[in-house]
C-alpha cells in the first residue's frame, strides 16, 4: 500500500485538504478528491493537454504531476476563469463568440494554456498563439477558431 499523505491545494480559490496516496496524480486528485472534473483525462502521459491546469500560474499537465509534489500550491482550472457571478470570463467569452469549442473535451485545458500565454502580457502574433497552444491537441475544430478566440481575447485585454 502506498503511504498515506495529506495534500492541501487551493483549487480556484477554495482550500481543499484531502488524503492522497504518494502515487496519486494531480489530475486524479482534482477529479476524484476535489470534485474538479473540468481537467480531463486524454492520454495520461502529458501529450494531449486536456488536463492542463495552472499551478501557481504556470501551465502544467496534471496527469504527469503527483498531487503531493505540488502540496500547498494554488491550482486554477477552467472553472477558475469564470466571473464571480458564474458567468463566463473574458477569455471564455471569446471562445464562446468565436465558436472555439465543438466536442468541448479539449476546451478546459486549451483555455488554461491560453490563459497562461495571455498572462505574460506579451502581444502574440497568430503564429505565436499557435506555438503557445501546440501542446494542447484538438481533434474537432482545426484550431482556427481557437486561435481566433485567443487573438480576440488578447485584443480585448489590451483595450
Amino acid at each position, binding site marked *: 500500500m502506498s503511504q498515506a499523505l495529506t495534500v492541501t491545494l487551493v483549487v480556484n480559490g477554495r482550500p481543499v485538504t484531502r488524503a492522497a496516496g504518494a502515487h496519486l496524480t494531480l489530475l486524479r486528485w482534482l477529479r476524484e478528491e476535489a470534485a474538479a472534473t473540468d481537467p480531463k483525462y486524454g492520454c495520461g502521459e502529458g501529450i494531449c493537454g486536456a488536463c492542463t491546469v495552472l499551478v501557481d500560474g504556470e501551465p502544467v499537465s496534471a496527469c504527469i504531476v503527483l498531487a503531493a509534489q505540488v502540496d500547498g500550491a494554488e491550482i486554477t482550472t477552467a472553472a477558475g476563469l469564470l466571473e464571480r457571478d458564474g458567468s463566463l470570463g473574458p477569455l471564455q467569452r471569446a471562445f464562446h463568440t468565436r465558436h472555439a469549442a465543438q466536442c468541448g473535451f479539449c476546451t478546459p485545458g486549451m483555455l488554461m494554456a491560453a490563459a497562461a500565454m495571455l498572462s505574460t502580457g506579451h502581444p502574440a502574433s*497568430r503564429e505565436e498563439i499557435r506555438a503557445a497552444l501546440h501542446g494542447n*491537441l484538438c481533434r474537432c475544430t482545426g484550431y*482556427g477558431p481557437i486561435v481566433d478566440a485567443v487573438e480576440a481575447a488578447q485584443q480585448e485585454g489590451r483595450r
Partner: protein
Amino acid sequence: MSAGEIRSSKAEELRVVHQPLPRHDQQEKIAGSTRYAGDLAFADMLHARLVRAPVPSAKITRRDAATAAAVPGVVCVLFGEDVPHNVIWVDVPGQTVEVAALKASMEVLATDRVRFHGEPVALVVADSEEALGEACDLVDIEYEELPGVFDPAEALAPGAPAVHAQGNLLGEWNIDRGGVDEAFAAADVIVEGSYRTQAVDHAYLEPEAGLGWLDDEGVLTLRVATQVVEHYRDVARILGIPDSRVRVIAPYVGGGFGGKEDMTVEPYLALAVWRTRRPVRMQWTRQESLLARPKRHAMTLRYKTAARGDGTIVGQEVDITADSGAYAYLSALVLLYSSVHACGPYRVDNVRLRARCAYTNNPPTSAFRGFGGMQVVFGYESQMDLLARRLQISAADVRKRNALARGDVLPVGQPIETEVLLAQTIDAVCDRAGDKPHPSRPRRAVGRGIASNIQSYGRLVWLNDSAAAWVGWQLDGSLTVRCGVPDIGGGQASSLAQIASEVLGTPMERITVHFGDSSLTPLAGTTTATRQLLMSGNAVYEACTMLRAGVLGAVAEATGQPADGLRLEPGAVTAEGFEMDLREALVTCRRRNVPIEALGTFFGPKGKPVVRDLRADRVFPDFTFGTHLCDLEVDLDTGKVRLLRYVAAHDVGRAINPRSVEGQISGGVVQGLGMALLEEVTLDNGVNLTGGLFQYLIPASTDVPDIETVILESGEGLGPFGARGIGEPPIGPPSAAVASAIHDAVGSRPVVLPITPERVLACVDAAGQPGWIP
C-alpha cells in the same frame, strides 16, 4: 483570420436558421461544467478493466482467475463463460460469402482463440483503480501462439492461415457498367496508378468511458460515450434480457468520428453491473484505445483510367483490397461505400470495379468519418491529376469537363437527382487562392494541388432509416424538444433548437433540447453517416410544422381571423392589426382540444438491398460535393512539408448554422491533413506498436494553417431548409490535394500515405529518373 464566405444561389427569408449563432451547448463546455461520460461518479461505484491479448494470433490454453480474485478489493474476475450470451453479431445483407446474409460474430470475451493484439479476454471488477491495476496483471492466461496473417492480399492467397473457419474473404463487391474493354481500346490516352492508404485512429480527445447502474426499476442503465444509443438492443441480447430493460444515455460526447459507432465499453459495463448489482465505471486508457479499438481500413487502390484527347473520361477500372482486421464489424459496408464512390464526382459510363476485404490478424477496422468513401478520393483524384498532366489540361478543367450534373448516373446505377455545384466549388477555391506563392528561400519548392470529392449523406436506403422527435410547448411559451440524437460535438442538438426556433418563432434561449436517451427521448438513430441533420432535423421540422398548424388553426377558429394570415412571432400569434399573446394562444389550444405537443417521424428514402454484383437505382439518399486547394512548400533537402494555405469549398445546400458548418469543414480538413502527412497505426506482424499519442501524431496547432472555407448553398439538399450533410465530406480531399501539391512542387507523385518526409524525398529523387511519370 477572415471569416468564411457564403455564396447562395437560392435566397430564402430566414430568421434564426442560417444565422451564425453560438451553439447552446457552448456555455457549459467553456465553463468546464459539462459532465462527459467519465465525469460522473457514484460514491459506492466499482471500477472495471479489461485484460487483453498480448499477441495477435493464439489459442488460449489456460485461464485462471484465482490469484487475481484474491487481491484485496477485487469483486470478480469474469471470462467468456460468465457472459450469458457471449457473442456480438454483425449482419450484412447482400453478402454472399456465406449463404444469404453474412452472419459474422465475435465473442464479448474470447474463450479459446484470440485473433488480434488487444482482444478482450477477461474483465476484472474491483473497488478501486489500484486494486484493478494489481489484479489485471495477475489474471493468469496462457497462450499458444498460432501462425497469423497480416496483409489482406496474403490472407486471400491459397494456404494462408485462416483467421476464421469460413475463410479469410469477408466481403466483395463488383460493378460492371457499359463496355469497358471497348472504351479502353478506343481511348486516346490511358493513365494507371496504384495507391495505398494506411490504418489510422480516430484519436478523439475523450477516450472511451462510461458509468453503469441499475436504476430504481431495475433497468440496466449505461451512461456512455457513444454515437449509438440503440446499442441498448445489443446489450440486452448479450445479457439475455428484454430490450426494454436496458437504457443507454449518451451525454455530450468528446468526439466520435465513427470510433464510437460500434460498442466500446457497453457490453463490459453491462456485464459488470449485471453481475455485481452495483454501479460500475469503466474508463479506457488512451493506450487501450489506440491498441484495440477498430481503425480506418488500410486499402490498396489500383486505377486505370481511359480518356479522350480532350480529357473526357470514357472508362475506368478500379481494384480495391481492404484490410478488415480480425473481425467483421462494418467492413463489408465500408467497402460498399468505397465501391459506390470509387469513380468520384465524375461521369464515367464504362466501369469495371472489383473490391474485396479480407480478415487478417491486425486490429479490426470499421467506421471512420468518410466510411470508405474517403480512401478512394486519394485514388480517383490522383488519376485526374495524371490525366491532366498527360494531356496538358489544367487540373481544374479536367475536373469540370467530367463533373457530374443532375440527371447523370453513378456507376452503380443511381441517378443524381439534385443540382451539383462541383464546378462552382472548383472556381471558388481557385478564385479565393489567387496566385501560387513563391518559395521562401533556395532549395525550397512550392506546389499547389486541388482535389474534389463526392460523399453520400444519410444511411443506405434499404436500412429503412427513420428518426423521431417530440416537440412540446410549455404553458409559458418556452419549448421542449426531445430527440434521441447523440451529440458528438458537431452541434447536433443545437441545430435542432435552431430549426425549432425558425419554425415556431421561439427564441433559442427559451428552447431546451433533451437528447441521446434510449428510454426517454424518441429514437432518432445513429449519429453516423452524416445523417442526423437530414433525419432528426427533418423529424423536428415535421413536429414543429404540426405544432404551428395546430396553434394557428386554433387561434383562427377562436377569433375568426383567417388562418392563412396568421404568423407565429416570438411570444405572440400575429396578423395584420391582430396580436394574441402566445400563452393565451396555447390556452386556446387546450380549451379546444388541440395538442400543443407533437411527435414527428421522418423516414429516409427507400430502396432495395444490393447484391454482390452491384446494380441499383438508389443506394444513398443523396450526396455532398466539394473541392479543396492546398499550397505547400517542400524542403528539397529534408523532405519536410510546410502547409502554406488551405481553402475548402462545399455545397452544403443550406447552412443551418454557418459557424457549425465552418467548424465541420475546418475540423474535417485538419483530420484529413493528419492522415495525409502524419498519422499511421504502426503494426509489426499484427503487434500494434502504437502505444501513445507521443507516437501517434495527430496535427497540433503548429502543423496546420488557418483553414479558409467557402460555403456554397444550392438549397438542393434533402435536409430541412434544403441542407445537405457536411460531417464527413470535408475529410475526403486533403490527402489527394496534398499529394497533388507535392507532385506540383517536386515533379513526382507520392502514392503511399502518410506522405512522410522520407516519402517526399523519394519523390524528389524519382523526378526525372527512368520510369518517372511527369
